[in-house]
């Protein structure tokens, strides 16, 4: 079964089987890390454009490596040095990329729905690399992949997402992916950072961290944006750390084999201590590695490939 859409705009729009197909396809992709020569011919002759309206290191580099290792021609557009700085509209930029022959457009944008606008405008496959507070599907896919790799399954697991849920596209994509694959999702954070409607999406909502993590199999710790404090959404980082910081002491009250994830970049010492982030429970660096495999799988499937075994051939 191939993917139904030409684009990957969010996990909301994928069927469970499509998510599983991507995860299954990423497994052979990951083997490339063990090879001396990291090059597959899969996307030879295809052009991939990274269109990033927001700063990003790991996501942009991860997509770039995924494309290059599969032999695509990869171009990066930094919006501060392009026509965007001259006032070109997103739609017009999209048409320009189309005219330049792009097969894949990877877009990161501070406004929700921007990838949808691009996807409606072009024939190329559009991959959402994070749009405002909407979705960041490849991040959630790599989180799912990491959970499955570490714990062997997703169905039935208790997963707690901690932090700024309201502004987090990572949280939103994780909620869609995890609930579709049968996990029980709890979100936890200050009431000012919990958006309305989550219980209608099948998510348990609490502001009590100790309750939220006591029985958890996975804790996904979100980055807290420090500017939220300036907007009055929480009183101080000190109090945030006190109430929601994941520390060694808190971890000791959890299940011994609890898996700790963080999408990065982390504010070490604020939402998570370095001690926890570097502990055996954490998979922060595996997440980064798995991210490349997931993005290779997504590019492969969107380019029309369909059999998980084929790719590493």
């Amino acid at each position: 079964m191939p993917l139904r859409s030409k684009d990957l705009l969010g996990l909301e729009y994928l069927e469970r089987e499509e998510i599983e197909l991507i995860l299954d396809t990423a497994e052979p992709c990951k083997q490339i890390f063990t090879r001396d020569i990291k090059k597959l011919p899969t996307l030879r002759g295809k052009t991939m454009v990274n269109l990033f309206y927001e700063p990003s290191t790991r996501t942009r580099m991860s997509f770039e490596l995924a494309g290059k290792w599969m032999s695509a021609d990869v171009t990066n557009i930094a919006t501060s040095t392009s026509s965007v700085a001259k006032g070109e509209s997103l739609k017009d930029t999209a048409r320009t990329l189309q005219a330049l022959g792009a097969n894949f457009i990877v877009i990161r944008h501070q406004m929700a729905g921007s990838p949808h606008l691009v996807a409606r405008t072009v024939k190329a496959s559009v991959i959402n690399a994070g749009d405002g507070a909407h979705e960041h599907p490849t991040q959630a896919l790599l989180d799912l992949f990491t959970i499955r790799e570490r714990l062997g399954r997703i169905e039935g697991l208790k997963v707690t997402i901690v932090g700024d849920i309201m502004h987090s596209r990572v949280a939103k994509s994780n909620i869609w992916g995890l609930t579709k694959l049968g996990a029980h999702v709890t979100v936890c954070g200050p009431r000012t950072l919990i958006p309305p409607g989550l219980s209608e999406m099948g998510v348990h909502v609490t502001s009590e961290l100790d309750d939220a993590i006591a029985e958890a199999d996975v804790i996904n710790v979100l980055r807290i944006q420090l500017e939220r404090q300036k907007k009055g959404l929480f009183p101080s980082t000190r109090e945030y750390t006190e109430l929601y910081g994941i520390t060694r002491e808190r971890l000791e009250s959890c299940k011994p084999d609890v898996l700790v994830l963080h999408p990065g970049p982390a504010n070490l010492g604020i939402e998570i201590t370095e001690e926890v982030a570097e502990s055996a429970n954490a998979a922060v660096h595996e997440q980064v590695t798995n991210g490349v495999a997931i993005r290779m799988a997504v590019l492969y499937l969107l380019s029309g490939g369909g059999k998980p075994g084929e790719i590493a051939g």
Partner: protein
Amino acid sequence: MRLLVKGGHVVDPRNRLDKVADILVEDGRILAVDAGIAAECATVLDVSGKVVVPGLIDMHVHLREPGREDEETIETGTRAAARGGFVAVACMPNTDPPLDTGAAVRFVLSRARETASTKVLPVGAITKGLAGVELAEIGELCQAGAVAVSDDGHSVGDSAVMRHAMDYASMFGIPVISHAEDTRLSAGGVMNEGLWSTRLGLPGIPAASEEIMVARDICLAELTGARLHIAHVSAAGSVDLVRRAKEKGISVTCEAAPHHFALTDEAVAGYDTNTKVSPPLRTGRDVEAVREGLADGTIDAIASDHAPHTAEEKEVEYELAAFGIIGLETSLALSITELVRPGILTMGQLVERMSYAPARILRLDWPGIAPGAVANITVLDPDHEFVVDPDEFASKSRNTPYAGRHLWGRVLATIVGGKIVYQTAGGWLDSQSLS
């Protein structure tokens, strides 16, 4: 010059008409309303089997002239109004420059005389430059012909300024039309705050941002005794506040826009920027409350809040897109489809909400379909089913969320002061009658 509107079913609750009757018009006025009028006429409109009502009034539109003639002009906007069955429209003052001086109001009226298909009733600004700080010269605005004042598009945030505006406007007997929005609460928001803003990751506008200002303005209306009109009520809490204020005898009226009884915030899924409007599309519960308010009369009037925008202003990221939906050419059909056909309003009540109530709120002389009255008449076919095609619109703009939607109710003719300013193409008119 005589015109006979023949054989239609006349629905006019104020004149106790709900029967087949002919209407004879001479020199712009209604001469007689009776069964089987036999008269020599230059024009005969045979409207047998159709419905004839007092001309509709849209008390809240944006005509964009002066300043944004690329979006709409008085000419195109009133052509759209005529096509939508309206004989008069009240145009909001957020033009460029705004209608905050007598000269600006006179400009609109003079352009209307030169180019408009319908009556144009200018609404003046409450404050200079719509800035919410200093009162505009409301006396001069009234003298020039303004029928009300409003800073529509902007909320008057300073309660003292709003209080003074109400006190001052009451000297002239005109209503103060409030765009009720606590802009600190709504800041940055682009859609209703709720499940759908969470799902779509778009910044939300809580219903409370409207309800707080509705409550404040009701308090000020009670304090000042001024005539308060709340524009585009969208939230269940606002309907409830107005209902309780009316029970207390406070002088408050309000209107609702068709998109607030025809669409919910779920329509934003897919990021169609034509669903972006202020106040935003709300939840199913709010839609239900607006419908109930229209049924029990808490909501006095239906007004389109026709807000034209160019494609360039809409075909952008959702957060960057302009707020606004055009409504003049879908307002009646949406009202028939969503209110009359499901039995929420009778046709007589619809006439009340779309003709008599706006006239009463704006203090127009409005005798309806009665001998001696100016002949302002709308002829419609409530059973005509059609699919909305924005390319057929007379408006300059196309920002409608209803493209492709099946609706019932078509305007067949709009008569302003005895003159047929709009009629549908397609042969329903008696062919020899058009001289």
